[in-house]
């Protein structure tokens, strides 16, 4: 990293630390205002969320300090954990064993290798074209037709979501900044921050004055809450525009786009969880469910954010 980029990483890290300290203080003082022996689930949920953010922020900072390889490894392991959660609940039979093992131990590492090597032409089509066809063949060769389309559809969907989509976060590293600097690593921080802060604004604004539910059967998300969330994300995006090549207005628009796709993505995940009859994907993060529960917005936002960045500003 050039000294300029390092300075910017340090400034961002300080800003994130400041925000998290503020959140921690708010959470703890809300806790203290309650009478002895009582707890409020909303306050506890907020404190739990802040704890998770500390963890995520520390992990992401360490990965950024380790550079390109650190980021790629971090998201490769995130993909692995997410795929593990998704496949646990996916429809599958004995005949799928080999194709699922290939997905986890061959396709996933290869995808991240291609991202790491900056082979854009390959990592954007590797899973949708090659893995898509190969795994169908491997499953078919084992010759069990029971529920075939359903089985391979769930496997393929898991691979797209957990590997292809998540790998588009580190894929931002391969984006060549217009000024030729190595600051594209900061776009990852930009994406993570606008989505997380947009989500939190959506959640609390929705609780406070949300009225019209967007999908009553699935999720408590409201139009009012989502509007607040997207606006907050746009505002944060504008404030952070100095780390992006988008300019203030462009950064606000990109942040709003990422935040909106993310929220709609977590709606899709709510539908899947409802279908599978699970509340949380796993117990990986104590009190917060699994990794997929945390990443659902990022999963949907990352590929869209990546492509718009490359096609509009590339």
């Amino acid at each position, binding site marked *: 990293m050039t000294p300029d980029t390092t300075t910017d990483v340090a400034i961002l890290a300080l800003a994130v630390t400041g925000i998290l300290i503020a959140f921690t203080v708010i959470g703890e003082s809300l806790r203290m205002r309650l009478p002895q022996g009582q707890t409020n689930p909303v306050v506890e949920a907020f404190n739990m969320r802040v704890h998770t953010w500390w963890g995520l922020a520390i992990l992401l900072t360490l990965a950024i300090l380790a550079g390109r390889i650190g980021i790629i490894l971090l998201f490769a392991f995130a993909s*692995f*954990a997410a*795929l*593990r*959660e998704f*496949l*646990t*609940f996916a*429809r*599958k039979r*004995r005949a799928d*064993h*080999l194709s*699922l*093992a290939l997905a*986890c*131990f061959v396709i996933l590492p290869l995808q991240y290798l291609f991202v790491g090597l900056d082979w854009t032409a390959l990592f954007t089509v590797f899973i949708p074209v090659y893995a898509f066809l190969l795994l169908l063949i491997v499953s078919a060769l084992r010759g069990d037709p*029971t*529920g075939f*389309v*359903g089985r391979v559809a769930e496997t393929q969907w898991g691979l797209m979501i957990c590997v292809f989509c998540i790998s588009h976060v580190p894929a931002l590293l391969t984006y060549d900044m217009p000024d030729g600097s190595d600051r594209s690593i900061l776009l990852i921080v930009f994406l993570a921050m606008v989505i997380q802060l947009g989500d939190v604004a959506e959640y609390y604004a929705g609780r406070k004055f949300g009225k019209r539910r967007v999908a009553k059967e699935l999720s408590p998300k409201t139009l009012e809450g989502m509007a607040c969330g997207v606006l907050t994300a746009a505002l944060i995006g504008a404030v952070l525009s100095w780390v992006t090549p988008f300019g203030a207005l462009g950064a606000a628009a990109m942040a709003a786009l990422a935040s909106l796709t993310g929220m709609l993505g977590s709606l899709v995940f709510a539908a899947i969880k409802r*279908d*599978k*009859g699970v509340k949380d994907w*796993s*117990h*990986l993060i104590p009190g917060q469910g699994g990794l997929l529960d945390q990443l659902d917005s990022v999963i949907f936002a990352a590929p869209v954010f990546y492509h718009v960045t490359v096609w509009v500003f590339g």
Partner: protein
Amino acid sequence: MTDLASLPRRIAARAVGHALAFVARFITAVRADWRGIEPVARQRVYFANHVSNADMPMIWTVLPSHMRRQTRPVAAADYWLKTRLRAFVGPEVFNCVLIDRRPDARTSDPMEAILAALDEGSSLIIFPEGNRNMTDDPLLPFRAGLYNMGRARPHVDLVPTWVANLNEIMPKGEVIPLPLICTVTFGAPIHVKEGESKDDFLKRAAGALLELAPKPRPDEARPAPAEQPQ
């Protein structure tokens, strides 16, 4: 002197144990659900369902180290003594109580070895089905061993222990384990009641174990994906 000579072996056994637990956690994120008991080092016999050779390492992995140290899996001598590597992993890493499954060939009574291990204060892990379950039924009929242990040492808690998902993680005949989430659920302890017959007790024990199995999800209960048209 023998102690000194075996020190490197014991260190190696501890290291291999940690490595196995790490691999188990990496592949399956295995997690204990302490539904009926607390994770404390009481003397117990954990009796579990058996679908895969990885069952025992899974239970062993989720036990906290203070419990792991006093827990010994009961395992088949003919399996664990077959190669030198297994003879190291079974008796030394897992500290197995080895018993001979072949009634005609054995020289000692397996129940004697089991009771001796209980009398030294160890907890045990046993698989009362005797063999790996390759059928579609959730459990095979239990062998008498569990009943005999419960009768002979009535103060020991018999804890039903359900290992979920392993038949999908590593079905028989597959070499590569799939990364799927595994959960080990510990139920409430049971004891042999005064005057309870062997069959009644074994039925009750199997029932207590089955109760811990996750309910089939709605989309699996359906034989084929038959979505209703809107």
